[in-house]
């Protein structure tokens, strides 16, 4: 087929241009600016510390990405983070011996939440935006009910270490935060699941056209449920890191779900499914976090930071929409 041959080269070039992620570009610009203001960020240590703080958001974005790729939304992530932190303190009660089974129980709770989200969407046919909004309200209420409205215990030190511990005197990098190791593992896992497994392709197919997927034999319901489970489990992971990093409070999870969605979209994921990349989501989350950091460093008054954040969000997404049309 001569037509194929003649077009492949130019098409590949264009495809590559399209492949450069807006998220990556935005992140590089923002981080570069931070580092200029604050040279510490240019050092490995500065970057690792930055990663340590950004880790929960990156993990949330990766989890959310699966739901978005499958055509849905998960608004319940933030409140699940809250439940994880409050629940973790209730279960462990400050006793280091309780840490490991507490983490196990938290993951079980996450599994349950993901299953309920998924089943409400697939069986009750409630659109995920509403299903997970309802879950957001309920989980928040449940977390506060469980803890009586305020944290009732501490997270043990070994639990905290997951998000707080920093190994010193590490060769090459100098320091190595434990949470960065966890983050790396998690991102690798997510990238593998979405991009290097049959399951990942099934998710994208389901997000793109569930009916076509169904008629091709893809187990649409199961795929949807799994996607919500993945999202919930990543929320628990992020909760464990956040609780570890910062300790217990009732507001930890607030608003994280929208940040995660925004990160995915900046990273080029298509809301309502069919197009998603883990690299993009990670870059998007890093961009958002870099933006928060930069706005802090620039010392803009708080309100103007919100304004700048809004502008950048729109600009990033508009530019990728524009490139999409051009390409």
């Amino acid at each position, binding site marked *: 087929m001569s*037509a194929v041959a003649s077009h492949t080269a130019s098409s590949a070039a264009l495809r590559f241009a399209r492949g450069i992620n807006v998220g990556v570009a935005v992140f590089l610009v923002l981080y570069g600016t931070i580092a200029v203001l604050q040279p510490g960020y240019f050092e490995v240590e500065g970057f690792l510390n930055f990663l340590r703080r950004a880790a929960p958001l990156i993990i949330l974005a990766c989890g959310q990405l699966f739901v978005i790729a499958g055509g849905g939304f998960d608004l319940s992530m933030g409140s699940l983070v809250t439940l994880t932190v409050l629940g973790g303190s209730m279960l462990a009660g400050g006793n280091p011996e309780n840490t490991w089974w507490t983490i196990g129980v938290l993951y079980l709770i996450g599994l349950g939440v993901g299953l309920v989200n998924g089943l409400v969407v697939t069986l009750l046919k409630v659109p995920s935006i509403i299903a997970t909004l309802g879950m957001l309200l309920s989980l928040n209420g449940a977390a506060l009910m469980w803890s009586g409205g305020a944290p009732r215990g501490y997270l043990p030190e070994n639990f905290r270490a997951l998000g707080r511990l920093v190994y010193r005197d590490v060769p090459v990098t100098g320091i190595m935060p434990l949470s960065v190791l966890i983050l790396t593992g998690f991102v690798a896992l997510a990238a593998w699941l979405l991009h290097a497994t*049959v399951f*990942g392709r099934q998710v994208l197919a389901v997000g793109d*056209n569930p009916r076509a997927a169904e008629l*091709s*034999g893809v187990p649409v319901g199961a795929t949807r449920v799994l996607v919500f489970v993945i999202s919930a489990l990543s929320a628990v992971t992020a909760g464990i890191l956040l609780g570890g990093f910062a300790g217990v409070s009732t507001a930890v999870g607030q608003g994280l779900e929208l940040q995660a969605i925004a990160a995915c979209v900046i990273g080029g994921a298509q809301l309502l499914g069919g197009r998603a990349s883990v690299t993009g989501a990670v870059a998007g989350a890093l961009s958002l976090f870099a933006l928060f950091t930069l706005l802090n460093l620039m010392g803009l008054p708080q309100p103007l930071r919100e304004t700048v954040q809004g502008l950048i969000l729109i600009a990033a997404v508009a530019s990728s929409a524009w490139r999409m049309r051009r390409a």
Partner: protein
Amino acid sequence: MSAAAPVLSMRGIGKSFTGVRALDDVSLDCRSGEVHAICGENGAGKSTLMKVLGGVYRPDEGEILLGGQPIAFRHPVEARRAGISIIHQELSLLPERSVADNIFLGLEPTRGGLLDRAAMRNGARKLLERVGARVQPAALVKSLSIAEQQLVEIAKALALDARIIVMDEPTAALDERDAGRLLDLVCTLRREGAAILYISHRMAELKAIADRITVLKDGKLVATHPAAALTPAMIVRLMVGRDLADFFPPPGDPAKLGPVVLSVQGAGNAILSDITLDLRAGEIVGVAGLEGSGKGALGRALFGDEPFTRGRMTIDGQDALIASPRAAIAAGVGFLSDDRKKEGIAPQQSLRDNVLMTLRAFAGRLLPPGSGDMARSAADRQLTQVDVRAAGFTQEIRELSGGNQQKVVIGRWLARDPKVLIFLEPTRGIDVAAKAAIYRLMRGLADRGRAILMISSDLPEIIGVSDRILVMHEGCIAGELQRGASEEDVMHLALGTGTTEAAA
């Protein structure tokens, strides 16, 4: 034929998409009172040319003249105001709105600032009568069959009292009877002085109504000739660039017929009743029937999409409980839907991902997506086998022409290679060469011992390809015909005026 100056002429139109030169220096004109047919292979650029005319795309080069005046459309509404009405290849109706709402969309009559519903109802009723659609103006479009929707789409195009009417494969979804009615309508419109651009892959239609025929190939104009000067074989040669010796494949060898693979006894559901049929390895069984006869429903029932609720079904002699498409595929049944856009393609995924969808649906979730028979080379072989024309196999499938999309979806089933294949309107919107290729593929599958149920509204194809023909009428199998039956035999049964032959 009138010798008047053309109302429409397009000069040197060029249009490119990412890496695809869809149109290259195409010129074309049309006079009033003329039917100008455009044909060409899938992806030749026919629809793109019409979209340029309709203001959907802006051409990269060239100009459009209306009554001699150059004109540029920035929005479809401008083309409509200029008197150009287009029936697009892809249905663009609003499923949740009434038929009348759809017909008058963008042209709503008002009285005192408010919608004049009575006028809409009456106007819609007249237009529906004109196109021969038996639907109520108040019915919701989602409750109509694809064919009825196509007729509504045509009525909608007529609502705009246009000078120039473009029809992009209007009969693809219609059965013989409705298609015939539409062709009569086209002739009426021509008499009334409209300039009509008509796109179709059905040779018989072109011969019946076209005054002139233009052939496109790979985005370029091949030739424009008076229809009288062309035979179907010549048209095919212009389109494909070579002769197409055997359009229909040879019949199957009855001696090589295998055992019964799929058997249904006394099955039924809300639409179907008393379905009894046997499907044997190595045969192609055609299912004919008018729109609404339930032939589509039969395919969906066998595939578990809208399952049978009573009766018995066996596959390879085993009782098969088929309650979902996945179960059907697992039991060895494949299914090609007649609604490619809604049920066939995953639009933003690559050709490779689309062609591998079914294989991956049954592969281990955690396997690499390219492992085993899902390897890239296997996918590419499959795509090459069905002769997909694309810029590359990583291209998103939504960028392909309809015919090429269909080939990819067929490729998906070839890759899985099920025992029984149900093809629902397999060549809807597909060009002659590709049709021939698909028929050969089907015959090849049958020869390798697969059983094929080909459900189609295209009578020539039913007669030319099938080893046996089942004819449906009002949800039942009205009768069975052997190879060699005539179109009249089929229509008799389909209309309920025929006699049932004893099953052979």
